[in-house]
Every structure is written in C-alpha cells, then in structure tokens.
C-alpha cells in the first residue's frame, strides 16, 4: 500500500478569498463600478467532532458522527455560506440608462457546516 500521503491537518470550513474582476467575465463594458469585488467562497472540511465555531446545525453534528462510523455510506456535511452581504453596482442597463442597484447575497461573510 502506498505510504499514506504526508497528512497535513485538513483546513477547517471557513471563508476563502475570491476576488471577482468583472473584466474576467467580460462585463467591463457595461458595469461602471466597481471593477470587481471581494466575493469570497466557502472551503474546508467539516470533520468529527464538529467544532462549535463551525456554525453547524444539530443535523450536521449527527451526520458527522454517522460519517465517522460509515465514511463510505454517509458523506461529511458541506461547508456552505451561512451569512452573506449585499453590494451596490453602478451600470448601464439595456436602454443605456445609468442605474445604481443594490444586490443581496453577493459577498460571503461567514461559512458553516450544513
């Protein structure tokens, strides 16, 4: 059996940095501002025992326990956004009017095991 890969502690579930540049997605000609923004994403493990700060539900705690007994049969809970915040975007609409609009759930502030 191949030697187990050097086990580094798998990083826990938490927000990870993700900067979205609107020119990367080809939207720079109609979005006036911002040019991009820090959207972040959730990444990491939800291992047994679920630490309190992982903002998890009772269901996730139980699922983790079952996963530890039967890893093949039951997956670990998922690391997902549990608190997001809005941003405002200044852009040209389909009739070339200038619009300032508020968009909900655009930035990941907090992650949790669910």
């Amino acid at each position, binding site marked *: 059996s191949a030697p187990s890969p050097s086990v580094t502690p798998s990083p826990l579930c938490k927000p990870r940095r993700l900067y979205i540049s609107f020119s990367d997605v080809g939207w720079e000609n109609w979005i006036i501002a911002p040019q991009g923004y820090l959207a972040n994403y959730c990444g990491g493990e939800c291992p047994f025992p679920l630490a309190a700060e992982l903002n998890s539900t009772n269901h996730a705690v139980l699922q983790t326990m079952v996963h530890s007994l039967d890893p093949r049969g039951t997956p670990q809970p998922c690391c997902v956004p549990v608190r997001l915040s*809005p941003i405002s975007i200044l852009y040209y609409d389909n*009739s*070339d009017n200038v619009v300032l609009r508020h968009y909900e759930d655009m930035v990941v502030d907090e992650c949790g095991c669910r």
Partner: protein
Amino acid sequence: SPVLAAGLSRQESSLLQSLGLSAKPSPKNPAPVPPVLRRMFQRREALPRPHKDRDPCRVEELSVPGDIVRVFADQGRFLPEGQPQGQLCLRRLLFFNLSVLEEGERLTMARLELQFQHNSYPAPSPGQVLELRLYRVSPRGLPQPRPGRRPLLERSFVRLHKSLPLDLSAALKTPGRNLALLLEISASGRTGSLRSLCASSDSFVATSLLVVTLGRQCRAGRSRR
C-alpha cells in the same frame, strides 16, 4: 468547446436575469455618469463591511424606500414658442423611455432635474420673475397650449440655479412605459426686452429624470417582514 460556451452563456443569461437584465447590456453611446449616482455609489463603498445595520431596501441618501436608482436621459425636443402673446422663453417636450421598469417595481421617488449652464440672475429690475410650468402630455400628440389646462407643477423664480430639481413623486405614482411632459418657462416683468428677460432660461442645457423604485426582491422581503 461549443458545449462549454453554450453552458456558460446559459448560466450568464440566468444570472443577468436575476440581476434584473433581459440581456447583457452593450451601451452604444454611454451617457456620462450622473454625479448624484456616482456620489451615492462612493458613499456606499466607503461604508464598513459587512453592512450589518443598513436597510438594503432603503436609499438612505434620498431618505426613501428603494433598492434601484435610475437616471433617465430626456429624449424630447424643443417646440416652437407657438404662443402669440406673452413672454414665453422656452418650450420643450420632455420624453423619458421608462420601459425598463420591471413588472412589480414600485416607484417611490421621481425627481426631474433641469440643468443650466450656470447660475443665472435676470437683470436686477423689480418685478422680474421667471415662471415655470410643467404639463403631462400624451407621448403621441404634439401638445397644444390650451388655456385653462392645469399644469402638473407650477413655480416662479427670481433666479435660476445651475441645477433645478423638481419633485414629481406624487404626480407620477404610475409613470407608465413612456413619460411625456411639456415644459414652459416664461418671463414676466414690467420692464426690459423679452430677450433680456429670457436670458436666464437661454442657458438651459439638459433634463434628466431620477427614479427610485422598490424591486421585486425588496417587495417580497417587505411583505414577508
């Protein structure tokens, strides 16, 4: 690959729709960004994140409910004075294409902004006044001045400021898909030639309409709340 491209464009169009856009905008001749919107955007950017205590369905800067602020450019035209007597300085049909307003958006503010080249002060002779009248007209017909027709809004000015905001929120509760207004500025005063009386309004530059609405996401949220 074409499959990947098709998938991406499908994803993009569904995201654009959730952003309230029917397709990816491609501004042909983008208008300059109105300073009022630029200032509002910069003020929001400066707020500490995350905006815990901020009501996302309220435009704090204008103290009205709303999550969408648009500025519509005037697509109208000047009209011949057409008034045989009196001292009409300026007569203009204002036309705003409001068809982008989505089903279910509720208008919470409408502010007409008249821009002049500079602050202007008529010659200081007593009794000189500029009168401004605004009528709602049909987008189709050429508006004929009819005596006794009630204006939507009537104001008198001794001086014209560079930027003149006129609140039309009450008058435009249901703006419809197009909005046509007849703007008349006339001068009255015991002395002075008509041209000198009208000098102030001759510096008229442009008009725009600032509209604040409550979009679906806010209206759903509010009714839930």
